[in-house]
């Protein structure tokens, strides 16, 4: 900053509190921050740390009862908080733009994309004929990296993907040529490959338009990749601030250190999987699983001939983007959803075809962990009631024995016995996930199917939960089918990894072969390169090889070919006509015509 220049946004001593049933809740406590023109700053912290409240309070967008707001804020030297609501609204639409976490929830489903753009442009002060507005809108859409904008103009929000919707949101935000963009967890709901593209876009917008961006995120990787300066929030306080590299490498506050430690747990690439734990015995085997979903006359294969096997005591991970069919695979393997073909064998017995009582019997041996712990616990049941219910089909009758099993399992998942009497609403999300793990473990299972068990948790808690799962594998020889969108995470835990794309398993290999260099399928390489990490120059180069297009379900040939640099280089005829089979290669399997064995 040059001497005497006024910063774009300056906040000093901002406090926000809410009135609740239990008195005042201090959500933000004397926060001060500063944003210069043309810089991206990050606000990082766990969920509930007040980072969203800080920005929403600043912009006057807080919902519900107006809380207590104190402090000063200046936008280009003009006082912000003292202005009337109409002045604030004017600033908000024009000079300050906001984009939210769930892009599709922020778009009105009854308006076409074009109508959204038109409204945003008119709101932003653009004028001119209908055609001029349209041209401006199309240019903005192209500006944020969207293709086929003419078609996009007449489409409804539900017809586009989350990544596209987020770009439309950004285009709308840019329509008034704002000086500051507030992005609240913009990439959290998106796939890794889409996230990588979005972060690129942010940097391009900064360089091209001189836009300042406040990026709110819980993900250190995202912050590290894009932000020049970072503020760390913890329980409403800004505990540390400074240059990103300085804060992340020489953090002084213990909270920042714990965050970085948790991040390092994943970023180090140090394998956490048990070595030599797996036995040759095949415990669970899926053979040719098929599942069709019909959607408004059109139907597609959510699962297309998926076969895999789990050895006793091993962790098999399935990765893929949203819509790849990995959750369908989990539900099908749990017999919680009918399949259109194929079988799931547990110790050689096809349990999809077993009788009702036998299935219930087997459900004690094969348990499942779900993604959202708050959704899978009945809000009206205490932890104890939940665990007691899980014991109903066990042969424990005496109350003393039930009590003993419950307290033992609580101890195993490191939960205090006082939690037994609590309702889910009084537990943190990490504690809730521990309860669901306890509910699964109490029946002494052999196999645990984990469907994104940590995706909705904070990083530090993710590490704790994964450590817990690892501990159980060590002590009880549990077998895991681990489903995740996060390749970096499964690389640490799994023995073998399968990659899914559009309902098909396209690559399977031992975890140590999952590197950008050794992966065989181009899609796997794209996934690996998209993970935000430290030395990303090389990875960014790999990402750049891939065209920036949306995944579509191609009817014939290789489903990935529209995104595949190998195909796009010489348009191999086989890729267009023949669906590549999953063939054996040296240390795994791959479904690609062009990958060398």
């Amino acid at each position: 900053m040059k001497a005497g220049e006024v910063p774009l946004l300056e906040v000093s001593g901002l406090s926000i509190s809410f009135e609740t049933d239990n008195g005042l809740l201090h959500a933000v406590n004397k926060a001060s921050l500063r944003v210069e023109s043309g810089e991206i700053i990050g606000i990082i912290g766990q969920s509930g740390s007040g980072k969203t409240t800080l920005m929403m309070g600043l912009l006057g967008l807080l919902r519900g009862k107006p809380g207590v707001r104190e402090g000063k804020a200046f936008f280009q030297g003009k006082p912000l908080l003292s202005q009337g609501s109409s002045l604030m609204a004017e600033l908000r639409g024009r000079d300050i733009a906001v984009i939210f976490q769930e892009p599709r929830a922020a778009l009105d489903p009854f308006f076409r994309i074009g109508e959204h753009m038109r409204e945003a442009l008119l709101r932003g002060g653009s004028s001119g004929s209908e055609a001029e507005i349209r041209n401006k809108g199309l240019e903005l859409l192209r500006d944020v990296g969207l293709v086929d904008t003419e078609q996009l103009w007449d489409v409804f929000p539900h017809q586009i993907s989350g990544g596209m919707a987020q770009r439309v949101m950004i285009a709308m935000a840019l329509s008034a040529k704002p000086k500051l963009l507030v992005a609240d967890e913009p990439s959290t709901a998106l796939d890794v490959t889409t996230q990588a593209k979005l972060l690129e876009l942010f940097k391009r917008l900064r360089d091209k338009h001189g836009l300042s961006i406040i990026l709110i995120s819980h993900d250190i990787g995202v912050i590290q990749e894009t932000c020049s300066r970072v503020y760390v929030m913890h329980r409403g306080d800004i505990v540390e601030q400074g240059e990103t590299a300085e804060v992340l490498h020489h953090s002084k506050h213990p909270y920042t250190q714990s965050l970085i430690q948790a991040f390092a747990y994943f970023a180090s690439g140090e394998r956490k999987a048990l070595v030599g734990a797996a036995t040759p015995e095949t415990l669970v085997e899926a053979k040719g699983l098929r599942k069709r979903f019909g959607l408004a006359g059109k139907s597609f294969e959510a699962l297309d001939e998926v076969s895999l096997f789990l050895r006793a005591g091993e962790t098999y991970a399935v990765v893929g983007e949203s819509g790849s069919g990995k959750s369908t695979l989990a539900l099908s393997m749990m017999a919680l959803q009918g399949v259109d073909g194929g079988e799931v064998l547990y110790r050689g017995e096809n349990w999809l075809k077993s009788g009702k009582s036998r299935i219930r019997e087997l459900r004690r041996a094969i348990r499942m962990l779900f993604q959202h712990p708050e959704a899978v616990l009945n809000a009206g049941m205490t932890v104890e009631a939940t665990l007691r219910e899980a014991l109903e089909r066990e042969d424990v009758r005496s109350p003393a024995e039930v009590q003993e099993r419950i307290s033992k399992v609580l101890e195993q998942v490191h939960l205090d016995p006082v939690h037994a009497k609590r309702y889910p609403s009084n537990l943190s999300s990490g504690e809730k996930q521990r309860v669901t793990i306890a509910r699964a473990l109490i029946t002494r299972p052999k196999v645990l199917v984990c469907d994104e068990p940590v995706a909705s948790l904070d990083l530090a808690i993710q590490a704790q939960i994964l450590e817990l799962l690892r501990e159980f594998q060590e002590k009880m020889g549990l077998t895991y089918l681990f489903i995740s969108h996060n390749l970096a995470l499964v690389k640490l835990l799994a023995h073998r990894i399968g990659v899914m794309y559009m309902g098909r398993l396209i690559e399977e290999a031992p975890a140590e072969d999952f590197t950008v260099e050794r992966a065989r399928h181009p899609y796997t390489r794209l996934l690996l390169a998209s993970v935000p990490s430290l030395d990303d120059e090389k990875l960014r180069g790999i990402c750049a090889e891939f065209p920036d297009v949306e995944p579509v379900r191609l009817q014939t040939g290789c489903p990935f070919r529209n995104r595949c640099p190998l195909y796009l280089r010489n348009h191999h005829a086989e890729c267009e006509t023949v669906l590549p089979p999953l063939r054996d290669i040296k240390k795994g399997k791959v479904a690609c015509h062009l990958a060398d064995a």
Partner: protein
Amino acid sequence: MSLLVFLRKPGGWRMLTGGAIVVFLVLTAVSGNFWTRFKSDEMDFEHQLVPPSSNWLMHLTTTEAGRKLLLQGNGSAGGSSVTADEDILGALDDGTKAQVPDASLLTAHGHVLGTDKNGRDMTALLVAGARNCFLPGLVACAVALGVGVWLGLLAGYYDGRWRLFAQVFNGTLLSMPRMVLILVVICALEPNVYLTMAVLGVTLIPRVSELIATRVRALSKMGFILAAKEGGLGDFRILTRHLFWYQNRAVFFVQFSLIMAESILVETTLSYLQFGTRPPEVSWGNIIEGSRLTFFSGQYWITFFPAAAIVLAILGFFYLGDGLNARLAHREGR
């Protein structure tokens, strides 16, 4: 302190007021036999159409002996305010009926709220009427909730056939006007208040089942139902425990209160029209009906007290239900 917190939350005052009224009325109905001085079928032909006594506190004492005790207490205290009433009662005890002055006769009969044209005690009638209101109301609730909740659970949980069945069943019932349906059943079968209330309950099934089904349909898609299945729970347990008891019991209590209020209204209406409780059985409705001819000749109390009781009971149940509903909405973040 905790009462204060309770009242501050939405619906707190309504729940407290409604609850207090309901508890008071139910206790009255249940315990009435033990403390009313007269039986509801007891006719005091010497005191027909007497107005409510102003000296009501005196007459609340239950027995003759107790009344004496009170009098002696007053007498020994030597209070200066010795009323004519006490003199009379004292005189009565002495068996010197002849000395009783005419003016005091009105207050000496013990009919606190007066009597009707047959000399029946209003207090006893009201208490008996309360019983004849609540019991039929419970029948209506049992039918409406017993069938409605199950139909709602099944229609919400299993889409397909159960949903179709519920649609046809509810649609058929909703297409018939309620009062007409009830009157037709009364005409076709023998008039019986419990049967009538059962029919009322049937007409309320659509409302209950639609309400429950809508909620269950949304809940069925939630993770905890999937998790319960994953845990090996059967459909019966999922329906009764997860979907009903832990998620919908508050709705059940809200509907219970509202249906009680409605059934009291319907019962008194029918009894007034002489289709419901028939004399000599007593209902608030037929007390009012019996006062038709006397109301305009100045005997207001025969109409007023049962009408007040009806209003109070309906208000009480509605307040309770409404408060519960507001609290439920608050808890679910609506």
